[in-house]
């Protein structure tokens, strides 16, 4: 079962302490050795997250390499977030939620038509946040081609032994957080998920708090 590991870091001592509103993108560089916390302010918020090697973005978070490296589907304390080159980008060092998803990917306007109904094409979606954030930061040198399979922090996507997969109500709650130590300089790109059609956000997208410590 999931283990809960608390952090000893004091938010008052953080270098960065920001709120990302529901449905908004966010990106920042986290330096090697810094600690990064994502805090679920109101509970059951899905935080779609991509990581890149800040000095060579062709190296990026790889869901499948992370899964096979730890031979486990779920992310929690002790998980190394592995790149497509087999290196640890970050290590999860504290987690009061206990389980995070990396199979569910990001919602997109196109996949919303498949999953829900054709008219859902016009609802805001994570992939559009990623596209916009990359477009507004030409210095990243990336575009849609670079949107890899992401992590969904705080999202609960259990897989059964017979291979079933469902999106279930979150196991997160107000104030739950996940904290990771950067093992290299990493660029983090987040979409604070605007999905209204499934229980990943409890049908109610809410803000998150992002903190970085030296």
């Amino acid at each position, binding site marked *: 079962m999931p283990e809960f590991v608390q952090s000893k870091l004091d938010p008052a001592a953080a270098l960065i302490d920001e709120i990302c509103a529901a449905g908004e993108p966010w990106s920042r560089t986290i330096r090697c050795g810094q600690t990064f916390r994502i805090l679920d302010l109101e509970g059951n918020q899905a935080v779609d997250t991509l990581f890149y090697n800040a000095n060579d973005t062709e190296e990026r978070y790889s869901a499948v390499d992370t899964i*096979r490296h730890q031979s486990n589907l779920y992310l929690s304390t002790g998980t190394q977030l592995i790149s497509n080159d087999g290196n640890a980008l970050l290590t999860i060092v504290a987690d009061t939620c206990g389980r995070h998803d990396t199979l*569910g990917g990001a919602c997109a306007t*196109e*996949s919303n038509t*498949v999953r829900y109904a054709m008219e859902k094409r016009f609802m805001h979606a994570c992939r559009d946040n990623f596209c916009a954030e990359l477009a507004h930061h030409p210095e990243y040198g990336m575009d849609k081609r670079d949107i890899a*399979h992401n992590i969904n922090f705080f999202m609960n996507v259990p897989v059964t032994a017979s*291979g079933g*997969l469902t999106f279930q109500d979150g196991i997160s709650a107000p104030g739950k957080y996940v904290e990771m130590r950067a093992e290299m300089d990493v660029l983090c790109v987040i979409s604070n998920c605007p999905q209204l059609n499934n229980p990943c956000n409890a049908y109610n997208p809410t803000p998150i708090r992002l903190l970085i410590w030296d």
Partner: protein
Amino acid sequence: MQRDTGAQLLWDETMPGGTQWSGVLRRGVTLRLEALLAGANASALFYNYDDKIERYNMPDTLKAQHTAFLTAGHVCYSDMGRVLCSITADSAGWNDTFCGASDDALLLKKYGVKRFQEHRNAMHRSAREGFLKELSKWGLGTRDIGANINFFSKVTANANGALTFHPEHAHAGDFVELRFEMNVLMVLSTSVHPLDSTPTFAPKPVRLAAWRSGVVPADDRCRNSCAENQRGFVNTERYFGA
């Protein structure tokens, strides 16, 4: 399970174990992959040949069909909500898509060094290196490698998420048939599954055979296996103006 009895064979080819291949499969063509020995694995990536930034998307494929593995009746979605190909037959009943591909570092750690100089074409070859070699021929590279499918390989998860690889899931003669719904660039490697528990590097050969299978009928099993897939086919048909 349907076989291509009577259909005109377009081409066939046998990939030795550990090798790589790429090619274009047009809309309306079916490709059979056949395991020639037990324990085969075929790691595959798919791209829209006409617009290669559209490609196979593992998360969208799994969540649309509420499954963590792929078998007959499932389809492979692109990141644009369209169906790249349908799995019309699968004699072994399970294909993994969340474990990724073998890479050189993994082969070195598990099996040691086997270079061309000493071993010629029996050298160790990883799926990731195979992907990179083939992708470069089409103007693609590292940025374009997402989660792949590992045909013939079965990996299950327990309640805590811990994975189990099922050795020799596929037997000699097992086959998967893919009916292409778009013009698809397919990249394949017959290197071992990354969680293969065989102590020595022993990739198995896979035979490919392609034939024209025609337009998808309205009562098609893959199209109708869920409401999501019906919409996925609508998106695909809109793209082709069908």
